[in-house]
């Protein structure tokens, strides 16, 4: 392999590795920040201590997840330049302002109020503290808004023109660019996925303690809340996912062809391939189990609608089918299981056995990490599915990479792998340790938890400071 090809491959692996690791944390903290705001709001409204205890319990976990999200996120904001400089130069005039808005409207908001949220409970009033929590939650959402707008523009670019330097420059209103065709669907689908991920984690932790017979009021409440979230939101996600798929079919047909495993065109209704082994050389799915015409029904809402296959796409413009075929099935399979868990919980609730049915609790524990897997699988589907382009149909990934020699990229990749596995494995372990004890009455603060020997202290006297 030529050096340039090696360097390109290494740069792609590095990006995939660092973004996948990074995405785990916001997928959790977006939902958790909102959950914390709800808990604090309920505490202020009802005055019940269990909500405050739950707030303090999850706040400690949030602080860990958020810190890991921040440090892995800064890596991303520089990697566009270090490893994908041609992309940065050419797309900068369009995606740059959107990312700058993410910093200005989201990152500063989160960071500015995080200190008060974590350490300020005894320094500002309850109302102000609640406002700070809401600002952090709002910040996580705004962050998702801008970065998904950038990603969506790269998937469905609109409102651009080329200038004489070969840069993509804005040629329509910014509204058109921000709300590009795939953005609304991707935003809603991703944010709901984050909420589901959080609900599954909260539900899993609650179920774990119920199984261990530590059914404090806090544990019962959080399990119940998580199961409500699941039963209400999982069905919505199915509908949104379907709409997102239809949108993809309209704008990025070859991605859907790869998801479906349709190498051949089907002029009289395409089958839904449930499982099989894709073979891109032979252009066929081995050992496939399929339901006739169902794919046409799902994608075109008509049993006999014709569907084009990858045979209509030149080979050098096809995404790698094997990865997408499987990642898509993992995501959908987990989604169906989430729906099932929600229904199971609903049945248990109606029969008054929500907190006693051990089978339900075992299922909930098993599904605890499912959200992360589904989110990563979905992300792989959409990102690999737009290959070989980084800006769909306009700029190939191979043409977007920095002129960096392969030893440099290889060395940085090894360094990232070692550091991420060390640091984030430790962080995940600490989070699991925090989850291992049940939330209970008199939940300690972040600042004066027994493990923290000194906290942030209030101003000792008036007139100090400034």
């Amino acid at each position, binding site marked *: 392999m030529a050096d340039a090809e090696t360097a390109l491959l290494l740069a792609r692996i590095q990006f995939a590795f660092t973004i996948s690791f990074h995405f785990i944390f916001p997928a959790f903290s977006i939902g958790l920040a909102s959950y914390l705001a709800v808990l604090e709001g309920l505490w202020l409204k009802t005055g019940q201590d269990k909500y405050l205890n739950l707030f303090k319990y999850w706040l400690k976990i949030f602080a860990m997840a958020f810190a890991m999200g921040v440090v892995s996120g*800064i890596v991303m*904001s520089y990697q566009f330049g270090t490893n994908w400089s041609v992309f940065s130069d050419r797309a900068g005039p369009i995606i740059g302002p959107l990312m700058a808005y993410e910093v200005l409207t989201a990152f500063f908001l989160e960071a500015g109020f995080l200190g008060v949220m974590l*350490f300020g409970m005894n320094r500002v009033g309850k109302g102000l503290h609640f406002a700070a929590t809401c600002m952090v939650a709002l910040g996580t959402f705004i962050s998702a808004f801008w970065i998904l707008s950038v990603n969506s523009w790269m998937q469905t670019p609109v409102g651009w023109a080329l200038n004489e330097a070969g840069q993509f420059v804005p040629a329509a209103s910014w509204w058109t660019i921000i709300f590009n065709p795939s953005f609304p669907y991707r935003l809603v689908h991703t944010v709901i996925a984050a909420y589901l991920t959080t609900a599954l984690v909260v539900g899993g932790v609650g179920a774990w303690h119920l199984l261990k017979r530590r059914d404090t009021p806090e544990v019962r409440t959080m399990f119940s809340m998580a199961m409500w979230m699941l039963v209400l939101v999982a069905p919505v996600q199915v509908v949104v996912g379907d709409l997102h798929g239809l949108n993809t079919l309209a704008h990025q047909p070859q991605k859907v062809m790869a998801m479906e495993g349709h190498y051949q065109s089907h002029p009289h209704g395409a089958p839904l391939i449930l499982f099989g082994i894709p073979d891109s050389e032979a252009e066929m799915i081995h050992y496939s189990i399929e339901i006739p015409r169902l794919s046409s029904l799902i994608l075109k809402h008509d049993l006999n609608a014709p569907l084009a296959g990858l045979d209509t796409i030149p080979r050098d413009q096809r995404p790698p089918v094997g990865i997408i075929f499987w990642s898509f099935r993992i995501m959908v399979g987990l989604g169906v299981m989430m729906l099932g868990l929600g229904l199971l919980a609903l049945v248990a609730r109606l029969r008054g056995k929500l907190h006693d049915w051990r089978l339900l609790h075992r299922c909930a524990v098993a599904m605890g990490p499912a959200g992360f897997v589904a989110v990563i699988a979905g992300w792989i589907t959409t990102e690999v599915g737009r290959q070989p382009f980084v800006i769909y149909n306009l700029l190939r990934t191979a043409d977007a990479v920095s002129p960096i020699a392969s030893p440099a990229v290889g060395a940085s990749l090894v360094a990232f792998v070692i550091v991420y596995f060390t640091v984030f494995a430790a962080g995940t372990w600490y989070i699991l340790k925090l989850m291992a004890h049940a939330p209970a009455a008199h939940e300690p603060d972040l600042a004066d938890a027994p493990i923290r020997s000194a906290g942030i202290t209030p101003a000792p006297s008036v007139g100090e400071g400034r």
Partner: protein
Amino acid sequence: MDLTIVWALIIAFAVAMYVVMDGFDLGIGILFLGFKVGKERDQAMNAIAPVWDGNETWLVLGGGGLLAAFPLAYAIVLPALYAPLTAMLLGLVFRGVAFEFRWRDPAHRRWWDAGFCLGSLVATFAQGITLGALLQGISIEGRAYAGSWWEWLSGFSLLTGASLVVAYALLGATWLIWKTEGRIHDDARRFAAWLLPAFLLFVGAVSLATPFLEGQYYQRWFAWPGLLLTVLMPLLFGGAALTAWEGIRRGWDWLPFAAALAMFALTLAGLGVSIWPDVIPGRVTIWQAAAPYESQLFMLVGSLVLMPMILAYTAWSYWVFRGKIGEEGYH
């Protein structure tokens, strides 16, 4: 109005904010292992725990703003500094997680403390190297970086790297003088008394070396009207240094930090004189690298509304955590 100039000033402001605000965070990290295990280290950590994340965000604005307003510069500078920037990012990982991790794992607290210190040190050294590499010049061909991946390495860039370590450490020590009392306050004063002369030596060395890197800097500083500044700068700098020295010696709370800030401001202003109006010194001007007018305008509208808000709630957050950090929890 020329929005390119406005954006150059905004980016310069973001970088300056970052250097000053994360400067004292990283400086405390650099000095961290010099503090006694236990209360002293806890206090040093708590002096920045509520604000470090906001401080670091200015780095993201500097990078993101550069991509948005001067995409060509972003696309050339970042590959040119591949190795130091990667090291900086990894250093910042260890620095950032230490704030939470060290409290969660007393058995390995020393490891995370060491990671906090080493991460801060590496990140700072890499930032200093970045500055030196930019000043000494970058190889460019067409619209891309054309040098090797170790072009940044030189005696000069190592000098600027070491200088920034000392500079941040001084800023961190003076922040602790202001924010703490008791043993750690005394320790910080002791450190600052060493760091201030060392800082002056390094600034002197860099200042003497810079004008001789390329013709451009020489002409700026030794021809009229730059000469006026060349004469004025050491005077102002000397005044600030003397003030800092007196503040440290007498243990005045906020004065050493304020004087250190003044020295940073003068240094940054000096850099501005050296570089302006280039975005990559000696190679690419701000106008050559600028994003189109529509991009600049779109961001400027938001920035004019958002920047004052950001500064306001950042100030509020500092106000909430004003005063001295105590030795024990709440007193």
